[in-house]
C-alpha cells in the first residue's frame, strides 16, 4: 500500500526533515507513527498525501510513485485516501452534511448518490441527528467524526491521520480511536501519527517511532523492505 525507499526530505530553511527513511505498510494494516515534536511525522504524512515531494528516494502509494507521477494524476491518487487532521479542517460556513457532500461533489458523484452516502456516513460516525448543524455547534470529538466521515466519503483504501486526537479529551480520544479501529477492521489501511503513548501502548498495533528524521524503532521491523535493512 505504502512503500518509502530511502526517502530524504530537505526544506529550504529548516534543513533535513527526513533522512533516508524506508518502510513498508501492507494493505489493511493499522500503524502508529510516533516520536517527539519535529521528528518528521507530519512530513511523512504530507509525502503520502502528495502535498510534498521527496528530495531524494521514492514514495509509492497505492500504485503511484513520487518519481513518475504527473501533477494531473495527483487528484486521482488522493481520491483513494482520506486525510484527517488535528484541527479538523471543516468548512465553517457549511453544515455537517454539506461538509461531507463536498468531498463527493468534487469527484463528480450524482446528487441522489450523495444524499444516500452522506446519510450512511453520518450514521457510521454516530452523528445521524447532526446533519443540519454547523461545525461550531459541535464538540471537538463530534467535529473530528465529521472530518472522518468526509475522509471516508470516496471509499478510500487508506486513511492518513495526523494527530487526530490531539485536541480531544480522553473520552473523545477513545471514541475517535475506536472509530478508526472499526474502519481498519473493515479493510482500510490506517496510518495515524500521535503523541499519545498511552494510546499506543494500550494496543498491539504496529508502531514506527521517528527521531530527528530517522526511524529509531519499528515494532515490526521484519516487514520493512530488505534494502532498508542496512540503515536500521
Amino acid at each position: 500500500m505504502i512503500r518509502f525507499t530511502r526517502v530524504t526530505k530537505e526544506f529550504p530553511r529548516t534543513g533535513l526533515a527526513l533522512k533516508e527513511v524506508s518502510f513498508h505498510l501492507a494493505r489493511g494494516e493499522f500503524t502508529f507513527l510516533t516520536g517527539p515534536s519535529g521528528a518528521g511525522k507530519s512530513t511523512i504524512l504530507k509525502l503520502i498525501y502528495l502535498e510534498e515531494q521527496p528530495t531524494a528516494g521514492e514514495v509509492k502509494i497505492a500504485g503511484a510513485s513520487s518519481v513518475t507521477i504527473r501533477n494531473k494524476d495527483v487528484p486521482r491518487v488522493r481520491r483513494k485516501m482520506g486525510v484527517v487532521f488535528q484541527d479538523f479542517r471543516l468548512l465553517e460556513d457549511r453544515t455537517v452534511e454539506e461538509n461531507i457532500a463536498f468531498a463527493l461533489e468534487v469527484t463528480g458523484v450524482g446528487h441522489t448518490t450523495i444524499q444516500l452516502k452522506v446519510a450512511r456516513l453520518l450514521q457510521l460516525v454516530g452523528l445521524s441527528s447532526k446533519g443540519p448543524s454547523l461545525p461550531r455547534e459541535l464538540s471537538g470529538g463530534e467535529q473530528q467524526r465529521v472530518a472522518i466521515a468526509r475522509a471516508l466519503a470516496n471509499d478510500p483504501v487508506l486513511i492518513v491521520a495526523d494527530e487526530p486526537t490531539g485536541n480531544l479529551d480522553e473520552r473523545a480520544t477513545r471514541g475517535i480511536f475506536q472509530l478508526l479501529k472499526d474502519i481498519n477492521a473493515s479493510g482500510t489501511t490506517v496510518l495515524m501519527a500521535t503523541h499519545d503513548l498511552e494510546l499506543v501502548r494500550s494496543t498491539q498495533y504496529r508502531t514506527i517511532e521517528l527521531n530527528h528524521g530517522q526511524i529509531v524503532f519499528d515494532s515490526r521491523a521484519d516487514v520493512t523492505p530488505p534494502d532498508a535493512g542496512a540503515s536500521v
Partner: protein
Amino acid sequence: MRLAWREALLAFKRAPMLSALSITTIAFSLFAFGLFGLVALNIRKALVEVEERVEVRAFIVDGTTSESTSAAIADVRAFPEVASVTLVTPEQALDRARRELGEFNDVFDPSILPASLDVRLKGGMRDPATVHAVAERMKTYDFIDDVRYGEEWVEKLHRIRNVATIAGILLGLTFATVAIVIIGSTIRMAILARAREISIMRLVGATDSFIRSPFLIEGALKGLLGGLLALAFAWIANYVIGHFVFRADFFDIRLSVLGVLGGALIGVLGSALSVGRHLREV
C-alpha cells in the same frame, strides 16, 4: 458543473460589497473604453463620408471632339479602381462654381472654365497611392490637360485615419489590461478569502480545473455585468451628448454584444490569471 455555478453565485452572496465594487470598476474601465470607441466610431464615420468625396478631376483640352471624349470615358470606366466617370461640361462647371464659390456669381461666360472628367473611385481604393496611380494613367491621354485630386488632402485624410486607428487600438489594449488587472485582483481577494476551502478541495481530490471553474464563472459573470453596466453608461452619455451637443452614432447591436462579451472575456482572463497563480503557489 452545477457545483461550480452554485459556488460562483455563492461568491456574490458572501461578499456583496466586493462583488459590487469589482463590477463597477470593470464597468468604468469598459465605459472609458466604450467612450473612446464611440469617438473612434464617429470619427471613422465622418472620415468615410469625407472620403467618399475624394475624386480625380481631369481637365479636357479645349476643342477635343466628343468622340474621343466618349472613348476616353469608356476607357477610364474600365479601370478596376473606378466606380464612376462623369463628364462635366463648361456650363455645368460654371453652375457648380457658382454654387460653391461666391466670386463666380457675376460670371456668365461658361467658356472660361474647361470641361472635365470627374472620376470617383471604389471604396477601399481611395488611398493616396491608388489615387495617384489613377491620376498618372489618365495623364497619358494627350487631350487631357491636367489632373487634380487634392494630393495633400487625400494624404492628410489617410494619416488622420491611421493615427485614429492606432490610437484606438493602443488605448483599447491599455483599458483592457487595466480591466484584467482589476478583475484579477478582486478575484485574488476572493481566492485568498477561500484559500482554506481550496486547500481542502485539493485534499479531497479536486482537480485544478474543478477548483478553477467557479472562479472563472464568477469572473465571466462580473465581466458580463460590468459590460452591461458600461453599455448603459455609454448609452446615457451618448444620449446626453446627442441632446445638448451634437448627434452622434451609437454602437449597433453587433458591436454592443461584442463589447459585453469582451467584458466577459476580460473577466475570465483576469480570474484565470489569478487562480492559475494561486494554484501554482500552493
